[in-house]
């Protein structure tokens, strides 16, 4: 086909190709072009596989102490070296991936459920409900969230479930605020009016018309929430309020090695790099998803 003057061939192809594509197929096509996001997705898939593998097999036991000289640097048998108790760091990193992913994903499940329900209620019914919910959300924004999570974990106990709850407790309002805003905008749209004049009940309008249209931003927000939750868990365990030892958590592993950073930096660096790469991958994927699902917001 002869190229039209002034219009890139790519644009023409795209226009012609776009006959019948759903939002998701469209988003997938855009996401595939974003190499950083794609590489991040591959990395995260590998990480999930490692976390599942660690459930059944690790090179060494994660809690066996003194399997070699303590503080030993990387060797052929122990690619990431040994920590201050002579435990194999690679095995602990693998198991630590489990904790991070459980916290990241578990927190977002709670955040999605609570945030979406609260946001829909506030946005759809407005009035008094909205005033109360917005007031509570604003209070939460005024206090340092990590410190609230810290206090909660301290008061309720140090278990994985409580850590997940405490982090979700400080994060739900981000999702609630987003869903509220989306709902406020969507409820004024023509298709909602059409549904209403067709006799649809509030339930049906909320779940069949508003929620599906807000799904894109919700997914993006949840993806960005995962690294935040993982970061919080790392802070908690770095300060000594994470899951109780000997269960390995990346934050606690970094904290354990910190006193010896001058002589054997590998104890700190291994979990630090694992943590940074994971957070980076989630952030790149989140950015990619945002560009893919909502191209208007692209910056």
């Amino acid at each position: 086909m002869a190229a039209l003057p002034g219009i890139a061939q790519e644009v023409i192809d795209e226009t012609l190709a776009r006959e019948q594509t759903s939002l998701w197929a469209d988003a997938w096509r855009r996401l595939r072009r974003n190499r950083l996001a794609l590489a991040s997705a591959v990395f995260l898939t590998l990480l999930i596989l490692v976390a599942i593998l660690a459930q059944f097999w690790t090179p060494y036991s994660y809690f066996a102490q003194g399997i070699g000289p303590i503080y030993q640097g990387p060797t052929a048998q122990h690619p990431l070296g040994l920590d201050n108790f002579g435990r194999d760091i690679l095995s602990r990193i693998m198991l630590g991936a489990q904790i991070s992913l459980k916290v990241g994903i578990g927190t977002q499940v709670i955040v999605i459920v609570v945030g979406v329900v609260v946001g829909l209620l506030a946005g759809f019914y407005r009035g008094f409900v909205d005033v109360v919910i917005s007031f509570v959300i604003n209070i939460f924004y005024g206090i340092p969230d990590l410190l609230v999570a810290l206090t909660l974990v301290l008061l309720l106990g140090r278990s994985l479930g409580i850590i997940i709850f405490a982090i979700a407790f400080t994060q739900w309002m981000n999702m609630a605020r987003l869903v509220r805003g989306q709902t406020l905008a969507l409820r004024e749209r023509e298709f909602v009016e059409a549904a209403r004049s067709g006799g649809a009940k509030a339930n049906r309008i909320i779940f069949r018309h508003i929620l599906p249209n807000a799904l894109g931003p919700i997914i993006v927000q949840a993806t960005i929430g995962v690294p935040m939750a993982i970061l919080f868990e790392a802070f908690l365990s770095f300060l000594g309020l994470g899951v109780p030892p000997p269960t390995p958590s990346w934050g606690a592993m970094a904290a354990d090695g910190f006193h010896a950073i001058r002589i054997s930096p590998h104890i700190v660096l291994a979990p630090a790099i694992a943590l940074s790469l994971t957070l980076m991958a989630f952030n790149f994927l989140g950015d990619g998803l945002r560009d893919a699902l909502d191209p208007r917001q692209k910056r």
Partner: protein
Amino acid sequence: MFTRGALLYIGQRLVLIVFTAVAVSSIVFLGVHRLPGSALLNERRPDPAAQRELLHFYHLDLPLSQQYVRFVEGVLHGDLGESLVNRSVQITPLLLREARVSLEVGGAAIVFTIGIGVLLGVLAAVRQNTWVDYLATTTSVIGYSMPNFVIASLLFLLFGVALYNWTGGALYYNSGWTGDYGTLDQIIIPGFALGFPYASIVARLTRASMLEVIRQDYVRTARAKGLTNRVVTIRHALRNALIPVVTILGPLVIGIITGSVVIENIFGIPGLGKEFATSILQRDYNIVIGLFTFYAIIIALANLLVDLLYTVIDPRIRY
């Protein structure tokens, strides 16, 4: 700048800050007292009389409602009570002293955040879609993907180990805090670790809002008048581009306060953050409540400052 209306506005806000402080500390107070465990009860005290005497000393034997009234009275008089672990340590002067230390480090962090963030953001926007832009944008994602304790350990390795080896031991960084005010390296290095993740966020915001402003007509007019690129960028575009950036200064202060709990612990800085980590692990609830009150006041003051900054940057905004 300060008209009568503005002064009235500031007055109202200050009154509101007092209410916020009382509200936040009340929530923490009631929350903490409803839940089990305390520094006093966790220690093994075989002598019940001594236990009772101790509870009486801290008025913990009174009904909760009376304790609460005493507490609120104290807060309104600026008295946050005594430490549960170190008896006869008054909390208000302790926290005031520590706040000054934290302010030095946190201030350095904010300078880094805004300095690095705005610089990277402006460079990325002016050179949009060049390698400068990609470098700045990627750096900023890396920046906020690194927990501050990771940045801290890298700084330790760089200044504590590499610099030491390279200069043969003549120059190196030793963490800690000497004297009342600390030395310059004791402030700057933790400040950098504290501020860098937020610098990345500021950079993203600055880039986005710069890109928007740079395309506006008045910028083109300024250029058409023959002004140099530098003058147009700094004097005309940046000023308006900074308005959205100012908005995140409030969350930034919260972030710095949160980060300082970790950073002050790592670097051994005797500030509010270290106090928080220590007293929460010791279950010294009086200090924890006091710290939350303190933080609420600091955050509210920061928000007030941000609102006043708007009027400086954009004279159209008035109160």
